[in-house]
């Protein structure tokens, strides 16, 4: 009987530790019309925008140009990866179809949850909102993304300049433009799960554990608003 309070206490401590580790990024303190301070845009035009009274992070596909990385890429890559920035830049240029912005607040995400709220606004070719993870200094990365022109959730890998399809969620989900939704990934060792609006969409066993930076991802001319980027790292 005496063990029960101890267990409860231990659980409370654990919950306190976990919640203390959770990082939630909103854009309330940022300046509309400027690049975000909490993310480093590498490809595409990422700006703080207004959605009603709220500040959001907006990938503006209207200014997308084929093969063009974001402005100041070299400086941003240097800030993130120091001497290894050239390799990163070369790789990012190969992926210039895919706007990415790397979260500055966590150097290495290995286990836990990453989620982001998103709202599709437009895009003639694509309407993609994704979570970027396992971003390596050489520019390789993984992404789980929702595409509003295909109504699906898919895991992609980007390795040495080549994009490869890995797994498509079996269920389609037709989301309306102008409505907010939540995309989430959970990583536990090599086990990856993807959720859309809390519905389990995707399960996959990665060939190796995740270790790298995280962020947000999009594609070509997508116009997407992002908000509430949340990361909860957990111990291995």
């Amino acid at each position, binding site marked *: 009987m005496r063990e029960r309070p101890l267990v409860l206490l231990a659980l409370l401590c654990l919950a306190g530790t976990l919640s203390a580790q959770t990082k939630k990024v909103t854009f309330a303190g940022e300046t509309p019309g400027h690049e975000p301070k909490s993310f480093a845009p590498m490809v595409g035009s990422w700006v703080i925008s207004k959605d009603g009274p709220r500040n959001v992070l907006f990938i503006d596909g209207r200014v997308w140009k084929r093969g063009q990385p974001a402005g100041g890429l070299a400086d941003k890559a240097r800030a993130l990866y120091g001497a290894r920035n050239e390799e990163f830049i070369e790789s990012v240029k190969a992926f210039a179809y895919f706007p990415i912005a790397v979260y500055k607040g966590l150097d290495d995400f290995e286990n836990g949850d990453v989620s982001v709220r998103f709202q599709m606004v437009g895009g003639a*070719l694509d309407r993609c909102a994704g979570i970027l993870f396992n971003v390596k200094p050489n520019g390789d990365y993984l992404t789980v993304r929702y595409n509003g022109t295909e109504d699906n959730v898919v895991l992609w890998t980007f390795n040495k300049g080549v994009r490869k399809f890995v797994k498509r969620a079996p269920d389609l989900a037709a989301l309306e433009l102008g409505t907010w939704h939540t995309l989430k990934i959970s990583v536990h060792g090599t086990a990856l799960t993807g959720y859309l609006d809390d519905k389990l969409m995707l399960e996959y066993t990665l060939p190796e554990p995740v270790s790298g930076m995280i962020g947000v991802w999009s594609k070509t001319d997508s116009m997407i608003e992002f908000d509430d980027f949340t990361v909860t790292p957990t111990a291995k």
Partner: protein
Amino acid sequence: MRFTRQLSVLAALAVLPALAAAQRAKGAKSVSCAVRATDAWVKRQAEWFDDSKHDWTNDTLRTALLQAAGIAAPLQAPVQFGVQVAGREPALGPTADKMVAELEKLAAARGSTWPTKSVVGAAGTHAVYLLAQRDTGFARAVLHRMMEAGPAESPAVDVATFEDHLRLVWGRKQIYGTQFHVGDNGKIVLAPMEDSAHADLRREDAALPPFKVGLCLANSGK
């Protein structure tokens, strides 16, 4: 130069009836239906549909496409007002069915060269868009090809109008606001639409007129 002259003439012709219609249109007092060659969306369409460089590779296919679609090049901007009224589809040429069958074969063949701008010119791609509406089953494949080809090879204005059209066919709501039908009282009615709040962002990207102007043009009988 010739294209610029055509634009000027067209704009002059377009302004008068459009203005008159604007005066008639209820609820559109502050919105003018006037279409000017200097409007950003008209200029973007004019640039995209400019075939004066004659830099396409398959002239035979282009000629056949134009004939089948019942259109003549060069196209005059604005090629699209972004107003499509159900039951008022433009007439196609006598070879339309034959050409649609050929396009269907092409779409089904993996790795085939799809008639994009570099293959059949801007007017040729517009002809493909017009023909694809003949068969809604085939239309999905065409829209996919057009989107896949990207904005340099497919006309954004046609892609947008086409997507709206197909979304309604599939039982979804349109997203650009280009689809209308004639209501019981004979008035033009906008088909169901989602996220009209961001419509102008999407319409700007697709070289369509601003939403209010589009509604005005629809009411004016464009």
